[in-house]
């Protein structure tokens, strides 16, 4: 009976997780290529031109997905970090540090595409809107996490210090978000709002969802590849890495 239950802790060891990640990467890469290909085709050729925003609105297919991913990845990162702190599993902490650069990249892309979209639509690259501001703060949180981990030489200490920071950050995110929102409404009447299309056309919505899934698969593939590098780097003195090296040579 017990043999039927999947032992998830089996994959908490770097030696078993490394080959599993290696097997998963091609699948997620393929899924990412297909969904992003289909999504990009749909966003350029299938989705109709917006009657108000013209062709420029198409950048939203990249923008919304990356913004979603940027927030989602921070929560996932904190969850992995918390898991590593609780169960003291090494791979969890490695996953957290592998997620951080991808999350920061998505945050940056979301901000950048938002600026590119804002210039023709609002006539300005940047407004101190609540969402833009909190996305910028999210980028700072990612950079803080990465900076802290890279400043600590001992990887075990880096893992746990980063985990505490990530958890403190996750607790703070709702507070920051609502305070920024309140600050924004108090300072100025909402001259521009980001939430425009509530009655979005179905094709546009599907394109956006497919693009988001594409980003999701991409994130998984990249993070697994990065975590494999981290595993090899940290476990380079163990016998199984030596054996792996022997096989390759």
């Amino acid at each position, binding site marked *: 009976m017990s043999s039927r239950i999947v032992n998830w802790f089996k994959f908490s060891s770097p030696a078993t997780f490394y080959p599993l990640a290696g097997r998963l990467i091609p699948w997620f890469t393929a899924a990412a290529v297909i969904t992003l290909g289909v999504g990009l085709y749909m966003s350029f050729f299938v989705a109709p031109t917006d009657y108000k925003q013209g062709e420029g609105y198409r950048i939203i297919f990249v923008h919304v997905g990356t913004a979603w991913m940027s927030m989602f990845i921070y929560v996932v990162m904190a969850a992995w970090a918390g898991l590593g702190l609780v169960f003291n599993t090494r791979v969890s902490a490695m996953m957290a540090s592998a997620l951080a650069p991808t999350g920061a990249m998505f945050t940056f892309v979301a901000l950048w595409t938002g600026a590119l979209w804002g210039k023709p639509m609002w006539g300005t690259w940047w407004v101190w809107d609540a969402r833009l501001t909190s996305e910028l*703060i999210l980028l*700072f*949180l990612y*950079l*803080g996490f990465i*900076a*802290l981990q890279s*400043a*600590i030489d001992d990887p075990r*200490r880096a893992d*746990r*210090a980063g985990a*505490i*920071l990530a*958890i*403190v*950050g996750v*607790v*703070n995110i709702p*507070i*920051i978000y609502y*305070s*920024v929102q*309140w*600050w924004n409404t*108090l300072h100025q009447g909402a001259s521009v709002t980001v939430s425009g299309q509530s009655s979005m056309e179905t094709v546009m919505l599907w394109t956006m969802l497919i693009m988001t899934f594409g980003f999701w698969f991409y994130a998984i593939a990249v993070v697994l590849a990065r975590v494999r590098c981290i595993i090899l780097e940290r476990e380079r003195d163990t016998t199984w890495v030596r054996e792996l090296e022997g096989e390759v040579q």
Partner: protein
Amino acid sequence: MFETFLAIVKRDLILAMRRRSDVLTILFFFVIVVSLFPLGIGPEMNTLRLIAPGVVWVAALLASMLALERLFAIDYADGALEQMLLTPQPLSLLVLGKVTAHWLVTGVPLVLMAPVLGIQYDLSLDGLRVLVITLLLGTPALSLIGAIGAALTLGLRGGGVLVSLLVLPLTIPVLIFGAGAVEATVSGLGGEGHISMLAAILVMALFFAPLAAAAALRVSVE
């Protein structure tokens, strides 16, 4: 348990009094930063009155970041911190004691100095009063949140800059509500809501920050 807390506060206060120049440095940093803004922006009183709450608050934020580095560093260097970790008393209580002493030494002078700087910017009497109240509620919250960052970066190279990078994003709500209360009062809207939020943040920080800082200290000192 309360005695331990008091003992830590007293010890840290005595230590700080023996090295008064450190405290004064932070206070002068605060004064200089606030005084620089009119030189950069121009002596237009209307503009200055408008930016006063933000400038004073940002300067207080930076000054308290500057002070954080020494919160645990000296005890870490001479080994006293390790002894504290070994005591049977809960570490979060000791952290709370250290943060309290730290705030009394670095935060309270800022609060006392702020009205003088507010007069430089021609703030109204109501504005000055609210500025003092918000700083009184906000600076302990800054010290508490900052303690997490200080504990995480203990003994790292470039810890001072790093601690700012970690802590400043987390202190944004304090800044928003602190400066917002003064601004709301000056513009006649009334800052009670902001002050209540600031008090709520302080209560939350009082409870959670010592726990997180204690966990961080255990990670940093092994």
